[in-house]
């Protein structure tokens, strides 16, 4: 497997109290989410939209959402890009550095399903594949929300954060219809 070297330290665990009351933690976590922007080999389209969200035009600081420079300070990772092979080690270390509860927002069609790079030799193909590697490395992620779009609209990112925090119910539903004669 791909080496994730950080001196073999055990994963940061939540205290028993917090683990038992994870739902309670989430009910309290309704505002002032601090986000860390993690680019995993994105084309910069989604990164520009993330910056757009932080400008006065959309101004997410009115919800207390703030961009921080270190995953150690963050509640939520904004993951953009299809996770290139070169970045896997660094991505796993960044996610591992976050305190529990860990939240991830997989942004863009690359972050969700790999985009047009879903089956190339140099990428993993989005967050679902990265999740398996995180599991192998013993890193637990408490909540994930997938936000499709190429690039994601700033409004869609705000909507995704609202879904993540449980303020809104997701609109998308699995649909399976049979083709009718007509």
């Amino acid at each position, binding site marked *: 497997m791909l080496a994730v070297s950080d001196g073999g330290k055990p994963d940061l665990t939540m205290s028993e109290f917090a683990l038992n009351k994870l739902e309670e933690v989430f009910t309290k976590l309704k505002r002032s989410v601090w986000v860390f922007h993690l680019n995993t080999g994105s084309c910069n389209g989604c990164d520009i939209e993330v910056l757009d969200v932080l400008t*006065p*035009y*959309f*101004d997410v600081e*009115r919800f207390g959402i703030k961009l921080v420079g270190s995953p150690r300070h963050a509640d939520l990772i904004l993951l953009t890009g299809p996770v290139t092979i070169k970045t896997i080690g660094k991505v796993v270390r960044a996610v591992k550095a976050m305190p529990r509860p860990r939240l991830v927002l997989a942004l863009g*069609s690359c972050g*969700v*399903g*790999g*985009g*047009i790079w*879903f089956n190339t030799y140099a990428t993993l193909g*989005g967050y*679902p594949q990265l999740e398996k590697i995180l599991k192998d490395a013993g890193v637990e992620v408490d*909540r*994930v*929300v*997938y*936000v*499709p*779009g*190429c690039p994601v*609209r*700033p*409004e*869609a990112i*705000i*909507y*995704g954060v*609202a*879904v*993540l925090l449980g303020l809104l119910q*997701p*609109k*998308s*539903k*699995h*649909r*399976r*219809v*049979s*083709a*009718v*004669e*007509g």
Partner: protein
Amino acid sequence: MRMVKFLKMLSISVREGTATRKYPFESPLVTPEFRGKIEVDPVKCVGCGACTRICPPKALTIGNEGDEIVLKYFEGRCIFCGMCAYVCPQKAITVSKEFELATWELGDLYDEVVHTTVKCRICGKPFTTVKFVKEVEKRIDNKVPEDLLTVCPECRKKLTARKIGSKVVGVSGE
């Protein structure tokens, strides 16, 4: 001096108003040209697979699932280019303005259209959809020989080779 600067800013901000959009509490900025998620009309779709061949990220896929042919649309990989709507011969695909697709489950991002299949009359393998065969019949005014319509491409090759062989050599292809 500071007081004067503040007054300057105040006059500007009063003139310009608030730039911030109140997004969750007002409608999003969507232009008429905006392309969001696509919608496949299950009445018009014949399952020809033209959209799956043009789709750059292969968000649209078509494949056999047992006795059914399923057209799958994975919103998570879609880049919202609208090529599928442009290329669809039946005009079954429309581009909607929906972009708030965030969800917990990857499974929620799949849309599927299930087609009934036609089985090859020689090998019995399901190879195309009932609606596609009907559409082909309609487009060529029923001029195609009935025995070729429900034969899969593999068997059709063999059948044609046999026919030519029997004509040229004069022996039956059996």
